């Protein structure tokens, strides 16, 4: 049993993240902790896994007892034999170049014999149904595959308790289903599991208890299902108008691997297109092609009636607003305000009218008080909101968003969807990569489903999801986010 008693923690020169938290995790138990962005969930996970106070500075009060031993008296290596932490950012947790080496890393450090390590590798990969990845190079895996490998690399060390921090954030619905099965399997095998999660629908079916961390307090929580569907009637796309963007028979390969295969797609004003598909199906590559950041090997893309390759990056930027998966890669300025208005300055639109409008939106997004802060000092969710705002500051006609809801709490999610709806009302179009069918059904008027770089289904969200169910992919219809 892991038991936290009267646990309080604050980072240097900051107010407490949480105070007097009591928490228990028993073997054969799956506990979920949810709460808004920045409420301290990840900090609590670091406490429970011993990284606080061993690895992170701050004021730590209280105690954590693990299997009748005080964690304060144990070394981090000893704690890590009992508790494993799967962190939020999969990419940065991988320290070797091959999947096999990565999963062997823990047992090798704990001096496990070679033959035993080999069988642990098999078992860990079997548990996440990813045996096919064993010979792959880690840097070439997709986001979802990396997440699976990180989980396997913790499983191979055979800890008694595992803490998952946002485990489903990069997983496709099939991956989420596999993760639920994994949790049940871990439970059966006497593991104690703690899941820190925004996406409650992903873990609630297998959770024994749910807790909520908010305002520094950890309390028991009974989530109530709330549909995220929009109350306003769905706007129909203006199909009689010229498409804002059209791709005709485009193909693209990375070396010999085909990423996009003879795909055609037109985007019309008034459309909110949900782009869905399994991990590695080519969604991100397609967005990069549509935004002119990659050139197709074959086929053509037109922005309006101009071939996209004939346009300068400034011309493309004028008509498109792009948000990438990692918020850090698209922040360039030293203050939130400078970053937000960068697009206006580049495009020569930094006049009073636009700047006043920009200020209003910054207030609405709750970032105005931080306008002079360094954007890198914002939380992950706030950085994401800043990315979204910055991409729309010059009112482009087409928004291209790659998984904008990752790491967003209810508030952030609502703000982003409202922005998409307003953009739609003003005649703009959006294409949004997401694994969330609730978003597709609630806000999208078109769903494009990619499979192996080609469009498998294209239609209204309801019809595509029902066809997917017929094709045995019914998990996509239940991949909504009951968000906290």
């Amino acid at each position: 049993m892991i038991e936290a008693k009267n646990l309080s923690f604050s980072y240097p020169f900051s107010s407490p993240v949480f105070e007097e938290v009591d928490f228990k995790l028993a073997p054969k138990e799956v506990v979920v902790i949810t709460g808004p962005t920045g409420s301290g969930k990840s900090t609590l996970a670091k406490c429970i896994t011993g990284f606080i106070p061993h690895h992170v500075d701050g004021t730590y009060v209280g105690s954590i007892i693990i299997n009748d031993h005080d964690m304060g008296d144990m070394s981090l290596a000893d704690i890590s034999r009992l508790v494993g932490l799967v962190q939020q950012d999969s990419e940065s947790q991988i320290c070797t170049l091959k999947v096999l080496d990565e999963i062997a890393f823990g047992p090798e450090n704990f001096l496990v014999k070679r033959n035993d390590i080999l069988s642990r590798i098999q078992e860990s990969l079997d548990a996440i149904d990813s045996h096919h990845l064993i010979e792959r190079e880690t840097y070439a895996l997709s986001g979802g595959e990396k997440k699976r490998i990180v989980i396997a690399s913790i499983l191979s060390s055979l800890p008694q308790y595992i803490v998952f921090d946002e485990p489903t954030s990069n997983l496709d619905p099939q991956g989420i289903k596999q993760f639920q099965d994994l949790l049940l399997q871990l439970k059966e095998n006497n593991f104690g599991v703690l899941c820190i999660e925004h996406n409650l629908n992903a873990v609630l079916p297998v959770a024994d208890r749910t807790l909520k961390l908010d305002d520094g307090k950890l309390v028991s929580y009974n989530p109530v299902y709330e549909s995220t569907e929009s109350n306003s009637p769905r706007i129909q796309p203006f199909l009689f108008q010229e498409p804002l963007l059209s791709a005709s028979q485009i193909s693209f390969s990375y070396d010999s691997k085909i990423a996009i295969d003879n795909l055609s797609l037109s985007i019309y004003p008034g459309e909110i297109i949900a782009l869905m598909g399994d991990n590695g199906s080519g969604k991100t590559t397609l967005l990069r092609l549509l935004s002119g950041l990659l050139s197709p090997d074959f086929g053509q893309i037109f922005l309006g009636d101009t071939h996209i390759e004939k346009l300068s990056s400034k011309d493309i930027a004028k008509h498109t607003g792009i948000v990438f998966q990692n918020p850090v890669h698209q922040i360039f300025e030293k203050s939130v305000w400078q970053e937000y208005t960068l697009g206006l300055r580049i495009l020569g639109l930094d006049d009073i009218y636009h700047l006043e409008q920009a200020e209003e939106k910054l207030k609405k997004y709750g970032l105005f008080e931080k306008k002079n802060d360094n954007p890198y000092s914002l939380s992950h969710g706030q950085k994401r909101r800043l990315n979204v705002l910055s991409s729309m500051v010059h009112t482009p006609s087409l928004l291209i968003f790659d998984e904008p809801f990752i790491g967003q709490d209810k508030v952030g999610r609502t703000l982003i969807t409202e922005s998409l709806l307003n953009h739609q009302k003003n005649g703009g179009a959006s294409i949004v990569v997401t694994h969330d069918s609730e978003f597709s059904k609630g806000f999208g008027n078109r769903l494009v489903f990619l499979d192996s770089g080609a469009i498998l289904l294209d239609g209204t969200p309801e019809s595509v999801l029902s066809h997917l169910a017929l094709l045995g992919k019914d998990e996509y219809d239940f991949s909504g986010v009951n968000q906290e």
Partner: protein
Amino acid sequence: MNKQFGFHEGDSFLHILNPLAKFLSLIFIMIGILIYPSLTLTIFFLLLTLIGFRVAQVPLELSHNRVRFLLVFSVLLLVLQVMVISNGNVIIYLVPVLNGTGPFFPITDYGISVGLVFATRFLLIVLSSMLFVSVTDPTLLAHSLARSGVPYRYSFALIISLRFLPLFDAESDMVRMAQRARGITYDVRSIHGILASIRYTFYPLLVSALSRVDTLSMSMDGRGFGYDTHRTYVRFAKWRKRDSFLMILSLGFLILCVLFSFNILPFPLILF
């Protein structure tokens, strides 16, 4: 992801050599070349390195920015040496006698030969190191280093740097894409453009790299890194006869270079 640098899996002769034997041979040959400045020898090893890329089927695309940068930099080294060294027989003056003044900037045979040695040495050191990284499995290298007595904490520093090489390569591509997506353009021929490039490229890359440090160290410590002074290995490299042969050859080369450079053996003219 299109990987330009880092380990390329393969089964060529260069791939299957023991990583430690390759590493030590590389160091011996580099030291030999540095203490015995022979242009012929340097060009010989440079050609051998280029053949090595071919044999190992590792692409060395001259069109790639970084390879182009290496070539440009080596030419600059040559030009700089030719310009600043005035010893030797003058071949030509860059500025001839004009109205009774001059001549200035003599180009000498000695300046050219020193410039060529510097430029080819630079290319050899960088390209042979790139070849070594391309044909050496970092995990096997870490194991070989650990077996030779290097604490595994240090040998893993090497693995991690190689692990993150393709990642940072991909991240710099991502940052450039993000710049283009925002319409950011700069002219790197001006100081202002260079500063803008630094600000818009290195800043996000640096922040991204620093943000990974904590996560990575927690990930490694959380899986028992440093639990004991030793660790086991699932994959390990064996030492074979060919590795001993390579060591004898490279060590012999180093000893010869030392003997030549200290005039213990007379300089063979063919190698000068």
